[in-house]
């Protein structure tokens, strides 16, 4: 019996129970679709995160205040500490001590209510210096950024994010308008181009004002001199680690700390963030793929189950075929082919569903989903393999049936 015959017969058998076959392959269908979607989601999220981190600015180091060392020796930033000051940021701009640092932008961020024309909007108000625009790689849609004079004079000027402007005024062309921040009137000098959002905040919902103004007018008191984050831009990608060393040395000196293990700040780089994010999403992808693989296992057991039913139902047919001269291997191949067709059928339908999902899902969850050809190809191969693996037992049972017993079955 040649392959054409085998395929034809197997396909007829699958088709003669169309509904049952469809239900049988449902498990594999769902499993394959899930694998394709999880892998796609993992890759898509990874892509999104990389894009977001890139959007922070290039060659960036981020200095956060505070540092904790837990029992396992892991160090992390301590968000509420106020160990970094404006003077720290100023020291980092030194050309002598920090030749590899091209720009420094301290940020002092506080959440405040903005009011314009009876519209209220609470956003994160950031005090910073003029280098912020370059360091954070931002551009302006309207107007201009505030100047060094504004910083020196603690001028009550503000640059709004595009979303903040839209929330307050319904449009972004609002240069020259004024807005009340925490009861103080500020003049809007510029509106930022949209930059999306990073992993922790919406980059378009901000109000950026001179550091001096935020520190003295809006915050004041004892915490006036502290900053929440210092962004450091290295002169080039090659100088990033030199810039890291310089920033660490300067800050340790300024804080009178001798050992970097006891530092009351932490410096992280974009690369480290990307690596962390990547490893998190890889782990997630593996985990989710594992769960999807379980569904494939269940699907495979479903195939085995229905193949056993099929063998039992067709005992007489098997007996007849054997009596007419079918050797055991032909019967085995017959049922293996049938199981493989079920597996492949589930795989193809699952791949179609998965591909459809990669088109629909981004609109629903707002995250990119990448249709990976490798995942689709792999899933199809796996689905055939599942059919064959779970078909072995039923097919062997069929092949071993004694023809007289099989023929005698009513």
């Amino acid at each position, binding site marked *: 019996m*040649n392959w054409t015959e085998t395929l034809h017969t197997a396909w007829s058998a699958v088709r003669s129970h169309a509904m049952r076959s469809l239900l049988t392959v449902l498990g594999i269908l769902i499993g394959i679709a899930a694998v394709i979607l999880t892998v796609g989601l993992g890759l898509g999220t990874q892509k999104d995160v990389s894009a977001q981190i890139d959007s922070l600015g290039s060659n960036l180091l981020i200095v956060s205040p505070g540092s904790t060392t837990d029992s396992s020796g892991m160090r992390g930033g301590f968000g509420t500490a106020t160990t970094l000051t404006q003077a720290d940021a100023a020291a980092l701009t030194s050309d002598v001590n920090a030749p590899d640092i091209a720009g420094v932008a301290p940020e002092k961020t506080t959440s405040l209510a903005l009011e314009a024309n009876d519209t209220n909007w609470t956003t994160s108000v950031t005090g910073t210096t003029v280098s912020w625009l370059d360091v954070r790689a931002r551009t302006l849609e309207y107007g201009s950024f505030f100047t060094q004079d504004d910083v020196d004079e603690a001028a009550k000027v503000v640059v709004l994010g595009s979303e903040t402007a839209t929330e307050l005024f319904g449009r972004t062309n609002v240069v020259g308008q004024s807005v009340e921040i925490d009861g103080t009137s500020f003049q809007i000098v510029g509106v930022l181009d949209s930059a999306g959002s990073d992993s922790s905040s919406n980059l378009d919902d901000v109000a950026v004002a001179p550091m001096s103004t935020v520190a003295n007018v809006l915050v004041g008191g004892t915490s006036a001199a502290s900053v929440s984050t210092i962004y450091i831009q290295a002169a080039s990608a090659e100088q990033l680690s030199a810039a890291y060393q310089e920033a660490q040395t300067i800050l340790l000196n300024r804080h009178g700390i001798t050992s970097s293990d006891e530092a009351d700040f932490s410096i992280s780089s974009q690369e480290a963030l990307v690596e962390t994010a990547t490893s998190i999403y890889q782990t997630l992808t593996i985990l989710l793929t594992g769960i999807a693989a379980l569904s494939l296992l269940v699907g495979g057991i479903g195939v085995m189950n229905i193949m056993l039913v099929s063998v039992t139902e067709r005992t*007489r047919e098997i007996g007849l*075929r054997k*009596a*007419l*001269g*079918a*050797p*055991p*291997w032909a019967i085995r191949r017959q049922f293996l082919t049938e199981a493989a067709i079920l597996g492949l059928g589930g795989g193809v339908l699952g791949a179609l569903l998965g591909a459809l999902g990669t088109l629909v899902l981004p609109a629903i969850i707002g995250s990119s989903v990448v249709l990976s050809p490798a995942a689709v190809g792999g899933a199809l191969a796996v689905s055939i393999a599942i059919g064959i693996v779970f078909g072995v037992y039923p097919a062997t049972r069929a092949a071993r049936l004694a023809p007289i017993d099989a023929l005698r079955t009513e």
Partner: protein
Amino acid sequence: MSAEQSAPPVIELSGVRKTYRSGAIEFEALRGIDLEIRGGEYVAIMGPSGSGKSTLMNVLGCLDVVTAGSYRLAGEDVEELDEAELARIRNREIGFVFQGFNLLPSLSAWRNVELPLVYAGVGKEERRERAALALERVGLGDKLDNRPGELSGGQQQRVAVARALVGEPTMILADEPTGNLDSVSTADVLGLFQELNDAGRTIVLITHELEVAQHASRLVRVKDGLIVEPSAVAA
């Protein structure tokens, strides 16, 4: 001495025993059968149920192996063959006709008839041609594409006979071929066997009905696992 008796033996059974074991109980279905059937013979094997004739049919059809003794079919010793080799022998040497027709309901008449050729590795074109010829031979040349469900019992058994013929086997082995048929269809099928035998086919018919057995040229009676009366049917 007729031509039949001088033809080489197709079947040679000598001292064949078949024992079934079910737990501790042994049951000896065949207790030493010697039988020789020559090419072109029309033999009826007859006996009541429980006589061992079904076991004999299974042995003759290479569907079951003997416990002791020897069985030569078309000059080949079959008692030592494995499953795959037995399948090959059944395919080449034996054309089965069963009581319950045993046609595959999802296949058309010619698809059913071509099955032995499929397992013999014959090409598709030739299979279709030979299946059509075999169906014409049994008078169903116009029913090639009908499924078994669309045919009467007699016609279905004719399809089964066509299937038994198509591979040009050494013998046709018919197991109660008229058991499920009315008297008209029975006459029809037995007439067909007679025609085939007249054309030189070896036919072995297993039955428990004397009227059916009497159509054969030789009657072999089986009782309690032994051949009791090898005799020619009175002409």
